[in-house]
Structure formats: C-alpha cells, structure tokens
C-alpha cells in the first residue's frame, strides 16, 4: 500500500514519533500523552449565524451557549432583507477548536440556517456606542473638542452632560471610552459588533436554495 497515513501532516509530531513502526509495543517506555482537542491560543472570534426569524430563536442560541459553557462577549441580532430570516453576530473568546465546536453546536439547532466563523476573513466590523459624559461649564468645550477629534457625534446636550454617539470597531470604541473616562461616564451602551465580509459573496444568498 503506497499511502502512508503518517505523512498527511495531521498528527502532532510527538504522537507521530511515538508510533512504533514495529508490531511490538515497547512496554518499558510510556507513550506521550494524547493531545486534547483544542488547547490552542485563545482569541476573539466572530461568528455570523443566519437563522429563521421565529419566536424563541434568540433563546435557543443563548441557552445553548450557556449550557455548553461558551461565554458570549457580544451578540447583535437584527432582521435581514428577507422577512423570514434574521442575522446574529456573536463575538466570543476561545481557541479555534472550542469555537468550531460552538459553531457546530449552533448549527445543530433546527432554526439555524448557516453559521460562519469570519474571524480569519477580511470583514467590515462596526459597533455603535452611546456615551453620556459628565460635562460642566468649565470643561464642556474641551469635551466637545475631543468628541469632534474622535469623529464622535453629539446627539444630546444637557446641563451637566452630553450624549455622544460613536461608531467604529470594538477597539476604536474601547479607545474612545478610555479617553473620556477622565471626565466621568454617567451611562454607556454599546450595540455589540456587527460584521459583514468584504467582497461580493453573500452568506444570505448562500443559504437560498
């Protein structure tokens, strides 16, 4: 047989080396431990799930993530151009295998049409935040200048505070929030990231029969 199953590069080097070519097991030497699934570097992943627009779908998704011990960082849900389909953008931290498992488990839900991990793909990611910043007569000008420089937009001006709308990636908003924290943040709300892959391919078109 010409095919060598040891040469397809899928086995960890330590285990490949441990596999004795002979029929006899070396009883005296303990083999190295089997690698557990995953265990790689933990990083932020973005999953896009296209789901049927039915009551309880959000509950199914969040219940599953809780039961399977996946911790969601943010979850944004909205309609799509099609009335019977909704779209979820889920960000979570985990190693690649754990997140793949989360995606597979989501995919098992009957109301889920498609799940895609877009972490490694070129995407547009945007999040919107409203920040109610403490602003007194003495520093209001300073705050407004900062907002302008940060490409934020003042949407409400009141005695003692301003509400600012900022849009950007998660890290851009993190940076803005850190910047204005010195003035005092009275309230903060963020939508969570929404994501779309660049280019003409469409996850929604891909599910249509």
């Amino acid at each position, binding site marked *: *047989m010409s*095919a*060598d*199953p*040891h040469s*397809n590069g*899928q*086995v960890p080097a330590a*285990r490949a080396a*441990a*596999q*004795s070519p002979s*029929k006899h*097991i070396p009883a005296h030497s303990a*083999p*190295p*431990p*089997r*690698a*557990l*699934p995953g265990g790689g570097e933990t990083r932020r992943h973005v999953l896009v799930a296209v*789901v*049927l627009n039915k009551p*309880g779908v959000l*509950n*199914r998704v969040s*219940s*599953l993530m809780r*039961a399977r011990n996946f911790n969601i960082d943010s979850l944004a849900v909205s309609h799509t151009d099609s009335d019977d389909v909704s779209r979820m953008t889920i960000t979570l931290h985990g190693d690649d*295998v754990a997140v*793949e*498992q989360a*995606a*597979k*488990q989501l*995919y*098992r*839900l*009957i*109301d*889920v*049409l*498609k*799940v*895609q991990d877009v972490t490694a793909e070129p995407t547009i990611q945007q999040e919107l935040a409203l920040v109610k910043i403490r602003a007194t007569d003495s520093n209001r000008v300073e705050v407004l200048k900062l907002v302008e420089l940060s490409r934020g937009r003042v949407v409400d001006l009141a005695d003692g505070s301003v509400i600012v709308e900022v849009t950007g990636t998660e890290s851009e908003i993190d940076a803005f929030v850190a910047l204005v924290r010195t003035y005092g943040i009275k309230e903060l709300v963020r939508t969570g990231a929404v994501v779309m892959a660049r280019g003409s391919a469409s996850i929604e078109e*891909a*599910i249509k*029969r």
Partner: protein
Amino acid sequence: MTKGDPANPPRSIGLTTAAPERRSHVPNDGSSEAAAVERARKEMLHEGRELKRTRIGADVLCEALLRQGVDVFFSYPGGVILPLYDVLGDYPELRHVLVRHEQGGAHAADGYARVTGRVGVCMGTSGPGATNLVTGIGTALLDSVPMVAITGNVPSALIGKDAFQEIDINGITLPMTKHNYLVRDADDLPRVVAEAFHIARSGRPGPVHIDITKDALQQETQAEHPSEAEVIAGLPGFRPNLDGHSRQLKLAAAEIAAARRPVILAGHGVLHAQAWDELRAFAEKAQIPVAWTLLGIGVIDETHPLAYGYMGMHGWKHVNRAIQSADLLFAIGMRFDDRVTGNVRTYAPYARIVHVDIDPAEIGKNVAVEVPIVGDAGRVLRALTPMVEAVDPATRASYFAQLADWKADSVASSWHGSGAWRDGLLSADYVIERIGELTDHEATYVADVGQNQMWLARYAGFRHPNTHVSSGGLGTMGYSVPAAMGAALGCPERETWAITGDGGFQMTSQELMTLVADHIPVKIALLDNKKLGMIRQWQEIIYAGNYHSSNLPGPDFAKLADAYGIPAFRARTPGDVDEAIRSAQAVDGPALIWFEIAEEQNIFPMMPAGKGLSDLIEKWGGADE
C-alpha cells in the same frame, strides 16, 4: 457549513425492515383483520370518512399520529389535555396505555423506540404532568432516541399568568430536546406534528417536544396534513449530511490498509442506522475485531469470531487492552464518552483515529481525530467496504493470537461460574448469565442503572441488534421497568426482561399496575443486594469505606408484587436460580423474580473516574472477589 441538498432526503428509520421481524398488536400480515385495520386507518386519515361532529385540534393530533404510523402511546390525563381524551374513543387503533406516572410513560416510549427503531410517543398534561416527563425526555436526548413528547398547556389567554398547573415547560425542555414547539393554533398542528416526527427520526435521532394549549386542542379546524416533501421543504435549517465525503473515505481506507492492530469501536449510531449487516461485512472483509460501547451492544453477535467485547469503565479488560495497544481505532456511531475513554490524555496512546458520526459536532469534541467522516453509519460502511482490501486472517495471526490470550485471561478472572460469590452467597453475574441462557439469548433485556446494568452488559450474551435497552448517557435509575413495558409492546414476539436493582426498582415500581392492567408480560429480575450497589462500591473503593446512605432497606418485594397481582419467585442460592427463571417464564403475563444476591459483591474491573483505560481495578479486598 451549509445545510445539505434538499434533493438528498434525510434517512428515514420509520418502519424497521430488517430482523427482528416486527409484530405489533396492529397486525400487518395480510389477514382479514389486518385489512380491516388498514381500512379503519384510512378512514381515520379522512380518506372517505367523516366525523359525526366538528373536527377539532385534538382530532387533528390523532390523525397526525396515525399518519406517522403510531400504534401505541403512553400517557396520563389531566385538566388541559382532556380535550384529547374526549376524542380518543373515536380512534380505537391508537392504543392508549394509561401509565401510573408520566415518567413511566416517557421511559416506555423510549423503550418502544429502541426496540422498534420507530418514534416513541408519550403525553402528559400541563404543569406537573409535563415536568414528570422531563427525566424521560432527558434520557432520550442523551441516548439519541427518537421520541415525540406531547403536553397540554393552559389556554392561550392564561399563558404567562401563573395559571393553575401552568409552568414554562417549553423553556424547560428547550435545552434537552432536539427541537420543541408551542402550538396555540390548531391550524398549525398538522405541520408541527409532521415536523416533530421528521426531526425526531432523521439524522441523529432525538426527542422533540410539542406543547399544545387547551384552546388549540378544542379549536375547530380544516387544516390539511402536509406531505413529507412539504415538511422537508419547510425545514431549511435541518439537512443532515448522510454520505461520507469521498476524500475522507479514501483517507480512511488508507489508514485501514496501513494498520496492523486495528480495532472497530461501534456504538449506538450503528443500531440507529440499522447497519449491523454492513458492519459485519466490513469487519469480515478487513479482518478487524469489533469492540462496542454500552449502547452499541448488539451491533454484532457476541459469538462472531470478530466480536471482541464491551469497552470502557466496566468493560472487559481484554477490550480495553486492545484499545490501549491499537494502532488504529475505527470509531463509528459512538462519541468517545468519558465512560468509554477515561482520561483522554492516556487513551489509546498508539492509535490514530478514524471517526464516523452523523453529527458533525461529535467529531473532535472529546478526542482529536485524524480522519473525520460525517455521515450515516450504513451509508458510510456501504461506500467504504468496497474501498478496503480483503485481508487474509493469516496475516493478522500474531495479533489475533495476542487478542485471544488477553480474552481468555480476562474472561476467566472475573466470572463466578459456580454461581457463588463469597461464603456461597448468590453471585449476580451468574444470575444474568442464566437469564441469558434460559431465554436462548432471544429476549429483549432492559437494564436499570448501576451494577445491574454492568452485569447485564457483560454477562447476558447478546446475539441480536436492539435486544439490549439501557439508559447509557443520562444513567436514569428507575428506567428498567417502564422502558421494558414499552419494549414489550414494541416487540411482543420476544420475551422482555427488566433487569433491575432494588434501588431503581423502588423509583418506578408504580408501573407494576400498568403491566397488570394492560397485560404486558414483562419478566422482572430484581437483583436485590439491599444496597445502592454501585454507590456502595465507590464508597468502598474511593471513599475509604464511608458508607453513607448506600444501605437501602426495601419492602418484602414478593408481597409488593402480590399486592399488584403479579406472581413472584424468590432465589437466594445458586441452586434456586434456574427454577425461578423457568417459573417466571411459565407465567402468562408479568412476573417478578426476587434474587437476593450477595450484598457486597462489586463489579470488576472498574476504571476509577479520572483514570485511564490502563488503570483498571480488578480486585479489592479478599482474593475471592
């Protein structure tokens, strides 16, 4: 990941086609009686028959069940499901078994499903009726058993008002079903019931729950039943992948060709796929020994030369040795449960793994594998078998000789052939072995949970698929008697034996009355050690003999059986065993045998939790274990 092609219809495991031949109380043998039933069934499907009253939601439910081929269901009435009971009299072919507790009904539906391969059906009312079903639904989920559980709920207008017997059962079953529904409009019922059955039996099977409000059951409706094609079209998010990818199959064939010490690990998925013939053909062609999981028992006749044995925590030592020294594991329809692998870090250290499963989420979940194949066990084996080279057994002579040595050693070391354990006390492994022998290994054997379950798995000697029924994943004590009830109705041509301990038996013994009332001839083998045996064993070995709460005084079980009108037999010594079994078999109807077994006998070998397959405990205490 995109759900598959709708032109590739999901596997239906509706009616069993392979042996054992199925004979239900609705005959299907071409007789005039069968023809009459068929006529009545057509009438029920509104083919030329008209109800003499208005058609309501409850009628639609009954029609839909009949369309799905349901012939029996297990239920208990209550306030909001009464509209259904009000029309049941019009559907005499739908056999209703009045259980004594909804949990019993759920387990009965589960047992029925496991022996027939068809969808089991249970029902209950709202509130406590519904919550009582939950343990049975969870049991079905963890063992991937096709089941539809139906509950009534309070009228729509009262939902969310904390009405009498209102509980959010939909929220409760959401994480423990494959899918669930709340129906408030009778017009939705035909579609929902058809979808529920399709989902329950297709792909990886599982339980589906339908909650129906009382007003929907009472509502007038003209709704039509959908065709199977319409059902599939209406479920765009449910497209199980059935055929293994050809590239993966080629990789698997190459792994098999290169392996010198391969082992097949076969699980419940092979039974779900009815792929036992394919498995045997594959194993014979490639000359690979077959090991099986607890729920895989019956995938191959245990007397077959390539049948090696039951694996895992209380599996055979020789099987675990073979796995630990294997260079290839061909795992099919199993999920590397912790009871199978023990500590994954030390599991099968020399083996590369080919893993076949219909559920992609199972692959890479518990162990990393070299060749994943997503597909139906039968279809994958049918595609793969022609791709592997026929192996001459002589080329595996040294491997097979090693396996045979290990097997002889392991079988002898843990068997009490005389029937006596320490001090002549009755040994449980002997009792199970005698039940297997005296039933010619032709019965259905339904385990409870704990030591009795492991003794049954090891010593009954299984010859046929779907003759072993056991709560593997959830480990539900109290499962045996009610599940045997369903198994007996699903497969009446076999004797049905409930193998239970005194602990599990006391959890659901109310179903004894159902056995009597519905003439269900289950033989109950009660292995009474007056202990929670498995708990006691762990306390002895792992918790330094701290026997807290594992003593379990029971009633006089013979009197208990007698109170229900069930003949009871008692066996205290090895010499009593055969006669007691024969006496129970001679009873026309249910019977109970009270085996008073040794109180402190352990089940060995045992893999302590967290340890590996090579760390089996084989003896403890005296040398006479």
